[in-house]
C-alpha cells in the first residue's frame, strides 16, 4: 500500500540538503504531490532530466509520513522545446506558477492537469502570441475552477451592457454603468476588450497561436485577467510581477 503510481507534470523543484530536491508535481489523480527526489543534483543521478520542470512523467512514489519519495520516474513527454526558447520558459513558468497556486495536495483535478498539459504543448511549438496564450490559459483555468466570468450581460441587472461598462472582479463579470455603484473596485473596460475576452474563452488554445489581436486590446485584457486571477487566489504571483522585466522587443 505504501507505493503508488501516478502521472504528472513537474511544476517546480527546490534544493534540499546536499544533493536532493523536493519536486512539486501536478498529477492527474492525486492533485498536487510534493516528493523528495534523492541525489538528483549529482550528475550521475538516475533521474537526471526526468524531474525537471515542464516534464510530463510517470512516477512510482513511496508514501511517506510527511513528504513522499520518488522511487521511479519515466518520461512521457519532456516538452524539451520549451527549454530551447527564452519566451517559452518565461511564459510556461508563469503557467506552472498559477497551476501550483491553485492545485491542492491530494485533491484530484484531472481538468487542471489536462489544461496545463495542453497549454504547455501549445507553448512548446509556438514562436509568437506568448502573452495571449498565457491570458487564455488563465481564463480557462478560472473557468474550470468555477469562476467562469459572465461577459454577455450585466452580472447584476442582466441587461445588455452598453458601450460603457465595467468589469467587476468581485462579481465575476461585466456591469452596466448604473449597476457599477455596487462595486467601487470594478475596472473600466471597453466592449472590444470584452469581445476579445469572450473569444479567448471560447477558442481552443491551439487556435490562439494564430490569432491577431491589437496590442492595446491585449494590454487591457492582460491587466483585467491578471487582476481577476489575483482577486481569486488572494495573492500575487511572483512570476507575473516579473514578466515585464523578461520581455523585450
Amino acid at each position, binding site marked *: 500500500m505504501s507505493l503508488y503510481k501516478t502521472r504528472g507534470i513537474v511544476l*517546480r523543484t527546490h*534544493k*534540499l*540538503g*546536499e*544533493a536532493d530536491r523536493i519536486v512539486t508535481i501536478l498529477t492527474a489523480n492525486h492533485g498536487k504531490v510534493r516528493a523528495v527526489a534523492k541525489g*538528483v*543534483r*549529482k*550528475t*550521475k*543521478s538516475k*533521474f*537526471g*532530466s*526526468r*524531474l*525537471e*520542470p*515542464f516534464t510530463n512523467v510517470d512516477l512510482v512514489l513511496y508514501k511517506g509520513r510527511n513528504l513522499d519519495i520518488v522511487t521511479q520516474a519515466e518520461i512521457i513527454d519532456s516538452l524539451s522545446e520549451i*527549454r530551447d*526558447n*527564452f519566451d517559452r*520558459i*518565461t511564459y510556461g*513558468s*508563469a503557467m*506552472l*506558477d498559477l497551476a501550483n497556486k491553485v492545485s491542492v495536495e491530494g485533491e484530484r483535478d484531472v481538468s487542471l492537469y489536462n489544461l496545463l498539459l495542453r497549454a504547455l504543448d501549445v507553448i512548446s511549438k509556438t514562436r509568437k502570441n506568448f502573452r495571449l496564450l498565457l491570458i487564455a490559459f488563465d481564463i480557462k483555468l478560472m473557468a474550470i475552477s468555477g469562476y467562469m466570468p459572465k461577459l454577455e450581460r450585466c452580472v447584476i441587472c442582466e441587461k445588455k451592457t452598453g458601450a460603457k461598462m465595467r468589469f467587476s472582479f468581485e462579481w465575476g463579470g461585466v456591469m452596466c454603468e448604473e449597476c457599477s455603484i455596487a462595486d467601487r473596485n470594478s475596472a473600466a473596460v471597453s466592449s472590444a476588450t470584452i469581445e476579445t475576452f469572450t473569444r479567448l474563452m471560447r477558442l481552443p488554445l491551439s487556435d490562439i497561436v494564430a490569432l491577431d489581436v491589437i496590442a492595446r486590446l491585449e494590454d487591457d485584457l492582460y491587466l483585467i485577467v491578471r487582476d481577476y486571477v489575483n482577486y481569486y487566489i488572494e495573492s500575487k504571483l*511572483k*512570476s507575473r*510581477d*516579473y514578466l515585464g*522585466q*523578461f520581455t523585450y522587443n
Partner: protein
Amino acid sequence: MAYYAGPVAMLIDEFAKLPGIGPKTAQRLTFHILKSSPTEARKLARAIDEVKDKISFCEECFNVTDQVRCEFCRDANRDQEAICVIEEPRDIVALEKTGEFRGLYHVLQGAISPIDGIGPDDIRVRELLKRLGEKEIKEVVIATNPNIEGEATAMYLARLIKPLGITVTRIASGLPVGGDLEYADEVTLGRALEGRREM
C-alpha cells in the same frame, strides 16, 4: 515544539534560517554544539566572524576574495579576452580543476528564475555588461547549470550580448540535465568546455 531556554531557542532559529536546514536539523545542530567542547564551539563562531570580516566579493567578477580583486582578476597571465559566466563562486573551483579554461570569470550570484520572479536585475547581469563595454572581450563562455534556470539565463545573456559583436558560447550539452555543475567530474566538465558551441 518544546520550550527551550532563550539562547538555545535563538541558536535553533538561526540554524533554521540556513538553506536546506529544517527545524529538526536545526535542533540537532544546536544540541551538537551544546555537547561539544567550548574550544570547538568558539572555533566555529570565530570562523563565521572572520569570513564576514575578511572575505568580500571581488569588485570586478564577484568571486569571493580577501582582497579588492580576486586572484583570477589580478593574474595578468590569464587570457584577458575571454570571460566565463557562472552562477556561483564554487563553480570556479569545478572549472579550474578541468584546466581547460584560462580566461576570466564572472559570477552572476544566481540565475534567472521566472517562476520565482528572479529576473536579470536580481543577478549580476548589469555588471557583466559594464565589463564587456570596458574590456576587449572576444568570447563569453556561458557555464550556468544545465537546468531550467541555467538555460533561461544562458538564452537571455546570448540575446543581450550577441548584438555587441562578441562570440557567445555555451558549454556542451554533454552535462546531464538537472545536475549541478559543482558535482560534475572534471573529465565530463572539461569535455563540455572543449565542446562548447556558439549560441
